[in-house]
């Protein structure tokens, strides 16, 4: 009989003890699997839902500084950019050219709200046309019109319905006050807490008129990729290619970091900044990553407690089985084999606990993903079709498997070595 199978038999022999110790490990893994799964689910849904609302996954923005220190967002050389993008064979679905009025006042006869108004192509065949979930109206007639697309929440707050007039007030790119009338042409499904990120949408020439951007120009060049998860990879590639093409570029960073640079530095001509959806969502992602880290730290504290438990239990086991060890040694079992017997027991216990915890964790996640959360309106940006998206983080499972198994083995190492060091005569003389 091999040492490994003896170890398994020993575990089966002491069912209650094994279940308690394995259960503690399983509980820790269950918690971390659920936390990782939930944060992964929320991030994935957020990314997917936001990418339906924003104008791309990779953004390039031209910036100019006036003599008076005002930063103008402008993009003139889009032909050259198209060339670079096509030469790199970036797998994109759609290129968007947008002008954004940040924090515009949207005014109805009854109320005012403040949010961004994005000027984009919303007509047939455009990415936003295909991805927006409308609850009322349609986008086909938006090109060339003064229609505006707003969220359900904004429509409710402003007390407006399709066809109603809204005045949009904002600064022009040079800082003058401007206001234009728009008519509600469509209403999209409320993105809940992300409404401020999403904002309202209108036809590009109309928003250009509002911002006093010359027709044919725009603020932001956006790329919708085939796969949003490749945004960072293609963003880095495009940035390097633009560098070799001698495009004047800002260093990479989140839009918030870049705005600080624009404010503090002085330059001439147009300088371009490139950021990805991940850069833009870095703050939100940071929260989820912190959550994962906290969960991992809690797991580690839990495992320190479990390790102490395992060490004590194995000291007891070695004490209880001293005569048995003496017998095995007398029958010819070598010292390393005796040590390994206990180590294998601990490793099998750890593996069993980890697998059980993982399976239970996945079952909890499956259960959670089946719950209809349509009533959770404010947070539907974090959901997929009103449900939590089932996300199992196999990479972190593999990491936990290695770490927890190693920790369990480490916890049992000291008593196992002590068992291995016992001489047969000494062990057999023991009276317990």
């Amino acid at each position, binding site marked *: 009989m091999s040492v490994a199978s003896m170890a398994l038999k020993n575990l089966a022999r002491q069912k209650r003890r094994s279940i308690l110790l394995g259960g503690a490990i399983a509980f820790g893994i269950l918690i971390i699997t659920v936390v990782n799964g939930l944060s992964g689910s929320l991030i994935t849904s957020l990314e997917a839902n936001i990418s339906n609302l924003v104008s791309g996954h990779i953004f390039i923005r031209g910036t100019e500084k006036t003599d008076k220190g005002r930063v103008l967002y402008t993009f003139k050389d889009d032909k050259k950019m198209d060339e670079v993008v096509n030469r790199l064979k970036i797998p994109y679905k759609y290129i968007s050219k947008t002008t954004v009025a940040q924090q515009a006042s949207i005014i109805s006869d009854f109320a*005012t709200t403040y949010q961004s108004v994005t000027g984009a192509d919303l007509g047939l065949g455009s990415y936003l046309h295909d991805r927006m979930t409308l609850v009322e109206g349609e986008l086909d007639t938006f090109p060339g019109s003064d229609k505006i697309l707003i969220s359900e929440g904004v429509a409710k707050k402003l007390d407006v319905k399709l066809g109603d007039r809204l005045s949009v*007030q904002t600064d022009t790119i040079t800082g003058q006050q401007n206001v234009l009338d728009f008519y509600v042409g469509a209403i999209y499904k409320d993105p809940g807490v992300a409404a401020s990120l999403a904002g309202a949408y209108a036809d590009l020439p109309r928003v250009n008129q509002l911002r*006093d951007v010359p027709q044919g120009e725009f603020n932001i060049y956006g790329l919708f990729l085939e796969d949003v998860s490749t945004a960072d990879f293609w963003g880095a590639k495009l940035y390097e290619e633009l560098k070799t093409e001698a495009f004047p570029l800002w260093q990479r960073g989140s839009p918030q970091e870049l705005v600080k640079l624009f404010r503090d530095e002085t330059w001439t001509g147009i300088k371009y900044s490139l950021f990805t959806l991940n850069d833009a969502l870095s703050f939100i992602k940071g929260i989820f990553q912190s959550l994962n880290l906290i969960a991992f730290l809690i797991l580690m504290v839990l495992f320190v407690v479990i390790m102490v438990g395992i060490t004590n239990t194995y000291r007891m086991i070695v004490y209880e089985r001293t005569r048995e060890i003496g017998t095995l040694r007398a029958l010819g079992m070598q010292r390393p084999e005796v040590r390994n017997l206990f180590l294998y027991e601990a490793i099998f216990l750890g593996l069993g606990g980890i697998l059980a915890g993982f399976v239970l964790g996945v079952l909890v996640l499956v259960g959670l993903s089946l719950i209809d959360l349509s009533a959770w309106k404010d947070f539907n940006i974090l959901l997929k079709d009103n449900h939590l998206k089932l996300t199992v983080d196999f990479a972190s499972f593999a990491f936990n498997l290695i770490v927890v198994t190693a920790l369990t083995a480490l916890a049992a190492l000291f008593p196992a070595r002590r068992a291995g060091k016992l001489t047969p005569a000494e062990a057999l003389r023991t009276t317990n």
Partner: protein
Amino acid sequence: MKKILLTLAALAMTTGAFAQDNVDFKAVLAKVDAQTNFKGDASAKVTIQSKKPGENDNIMQAQYFRRDAEDKFMILILKPEVNKGQGYLKIEDNIIFYDPESRKFSKLTGSGNFQDSNAKNSDFQASSLSEDYNIVESGREKLQAKDTWVLTLKAKKNDVTYPKMKIWVEVATNLMLKSEDYSLSDRLMRTSLYGKYVNIDGRFLATRMRFEDNLKKGEVTDLVLENPSLAKLPDSVFSQAYLEKVNN
């Protein structure tokens, strides 16, 4: 008799028109600026009361310091407690906002609203109408029984808050009594009323102002300036360090 009356009326109108034609409105505009800008420093306590439909009135108090010759101002919020210590500093073309809670400075535009009121940040700076605008139309009107010049102004530059303004200047005093502020699309956005001026050492400070939002119905902001002073201010008042210091 009727003919005589008509002739007299026509003569009166022609004389009026001549009188108007003879007025140098550029000089009038320059006087509006010159009379309301101070050679040295000026300071006052300012109370800002904003009214929005369906909301409680928002009352704010601040200390307002000006150094028009260097195109600087500093506004330090005193009340309410939640905004206490916030500050606005204008140096050259930059308006900087200080938030004592985050201890951070951020840059604002002149066209931004002052503390969610209907006053603009640019309303607190020295008047530069003659520098920023061309007169495109002029006329004469009675405004609350006062004889006024009505001047329509178009911005010379594309970075002033309002591309078009219509102002009512009292003929007798060359002080602006009212202005209508228009957007680039020529929509009336705001009406400003200058209810009272005080004469301090030959210069005039508007001590009662009202800003009515013409887009957002019912939104009104009243500004009252009290305890005006022309005492010289230390240079340090117009610095970012001052804002940090008063909050320590």
